[in-house]
């Protein structure tokens, strides 16, 4: 993809293929010899882990679709049949439902990694933007999937989320009706959500291809945030990072399996084991954990339209990130001021998530959580739109190392390697 290809076909057959469809050349250049910074740490293994997650969701999802019935009268029972009657159905469904949580866990680590090491900065803006697009597609897919079991949380989650569109002036209620295919969430809604839930993962796979393609043009960023300057700064992707990625993937799968086998409903909501009832809203509607921060933002604004705008704005903001950060230094390792505000931002996101999980009128130690959520929402926007541009201008970064090799190997060894 980038730089001259180092592939040489060995056999006559490989030559024949190479002249017609150079797929082996592509694989060789991107997954074998691809020069990768030698200092990538554990946080850089999550790209591979995320690819694994997408594969697991697609595989288990295709199998589940063989047994699931997308009909408002039958969906709930068909999911119970998968749990009780289908051979290993319980396992496949628990992998799929916990897999969604694992997918988001990994994507949040991946995004915060990019944020900390400045991986969104030139020349990697498009990698970040495509990544945010994947994140949006993931949220849509997860939302559609959560509706399918047709439990109480499925139904009322779908009602609340689709009603967000009704906040749009004039045409809002028509959009909601168009999304439902009825005057309320019902059978028509369930069917189209199933169709889209099956489609979107393959769109995600395509966009992931663009994400990786864009990554292979400038190559990986690294924890130092400095450019690769010489071959000493890199190692070939295989075997160095194939082995490292595989090792951490194994650890990740251990955590994944722990949830699937020992706490399969840890992320779930017991209300969703009750069939959807359009006449009774559960006392506390809570989205899945990975959407809680945005839900807290929505609830903290006492106006319908503004709440929806703020929630949407929180995600739209991410698209502008590459131009909001004015610093010339990428990595927070060398940004003493930014580092502190970064961690405050991470804490604000966790606080928002906590507030989103509590009821609207809850308070902790006499402090109403509504106001805590409002402050955290304010900080979220302050961080991106005010603090980030200003800090980049006023901060004095620490001295950057001369090269990756010098930083990793020390001055003498780097010189000897020259």
């Amino acid at each position, binding site marked *: 993809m980038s730089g001259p290809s180092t592939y040489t076909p060995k056999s006559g057959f490989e030559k024949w293929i190479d002249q017609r469809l150079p797929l082996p050349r592509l694989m060789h250049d991107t997954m074998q010899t691809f020069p990768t910074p030698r200092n990538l740490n554990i946080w850089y293994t999550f790209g591979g882990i995320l690819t694994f997650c997408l594969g697991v969701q697609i595989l288990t999802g295709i199998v589940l679709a063989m047994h699931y019935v997308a009909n408002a009268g039958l969906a709930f029972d068909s999911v119970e049949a998968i749990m009780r009657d289908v051979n290993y159905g319980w396992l496949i469904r628990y992998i799929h439902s916990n897999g969604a949580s694992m997918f988001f866990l990994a994507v949040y680590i991946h995004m915060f990694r990019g944020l900390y090491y400045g991986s969104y900065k030139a020349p990697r803006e498009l990698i970040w933007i495509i990544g945010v697009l994947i994140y949006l597609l993931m949220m849509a897919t997860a939302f559609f999937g959560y509706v399918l079991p047709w439990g109480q949380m499925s139904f009322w989650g779908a009602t609340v989320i689709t009603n967000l569109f009704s906040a749009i002036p004039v045409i809002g209620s028509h959009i909601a009706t168009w999304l439902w*295919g009825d005057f309320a969430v019902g059978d028509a809604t369930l069917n189209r959500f199933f169709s889209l839930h099956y489609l979107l993962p393959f769109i995600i796979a395509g966009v992931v291809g663009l994400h990786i393609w864009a990554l292979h043009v400038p190559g990986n960023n690294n924890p130092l945030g400095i450019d690769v300057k010489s071959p000493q700064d890199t190692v070939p992707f295989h075997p160095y990072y194939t082995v490292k990625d595989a090792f951490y993937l194994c650890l990740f799968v251990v955590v994944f399996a722990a949830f699937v086998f020992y706490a399969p409903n840890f992320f779930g909501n017991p209300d969703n084991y009750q069939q959807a009832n359009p006449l009774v809203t*559960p006392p506390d509607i809570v989205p899945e954990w990975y959407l809680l921060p945005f839900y807290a933002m929505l609830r903290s604004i006492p106006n319908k339209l503004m709440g929806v705008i703020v929630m949407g704005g929180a995600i739209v903001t991410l698209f502008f990130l590459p131009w909001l950060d004015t610093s010339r230094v990428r990595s927070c390792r060398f940004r003493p001021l930014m580092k502190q505000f970064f961690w405050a931002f991470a804490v604000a996101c966790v606080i928002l998530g906590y507030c989103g999980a509590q*009821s609207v009128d809850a308070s902790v130690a006499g402090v109403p959580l509504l106001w805590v959520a409002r402050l955290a929402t304010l900080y979220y926007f302050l961080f991106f739109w005010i603090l980030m541009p200003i800090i980049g201008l006023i901060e004095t970064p620490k001295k950057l190392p001369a090269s990756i090799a010098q930083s990793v190997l020390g001055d003498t060894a780097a010189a000897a390697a020259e």
Partner: protein
Amino acid sequence: MAAVGAAAAAWPFIDQMNPSAAALALSTVEVDLSPVAAGQQIVVKWRGHPLFIRHRTPAEIDSAKKVDVATLPDPLARNANKPDSAPAADEDRVIKPEWLVLIGVCTHLGCTPTGFEGDYGGWLCHCHGSQYDTSGRIRKGPAPENLAVPPYAFLTDTRVKVG
């Protein structure tokens, strides 16, 4: 021309998402009110939505009437049986003062509010904390509009037809 053709070709694929003929077939429901005592509320299903029919006590009617319409977040009646411009006075929310008929869908994000809760004795929506009074009017919280009143008519003194 090409754009017009493309739009014409796209329209069936967009419009198929709208409610089908079956969903559009307006349904009506008839409800016998005689078992509902003053101070009680029943919930019936109408067009997929819950319908609240509340037999209000004189005290509840009084408290709803006392409110100054100018102080309400939504000053309109939202009553399908009245003109769109009707004010949100209690008289314009009902046909007979003791019977309050409402679509039980919170105007915020569509949850079903719980009756006889909240600061105003009407409904409280547990999803995001919207509170309605004994006339079903929004008083506090994020919901923008009063609970909607469906088209309905009394067939007899104790029988109502909705839709």
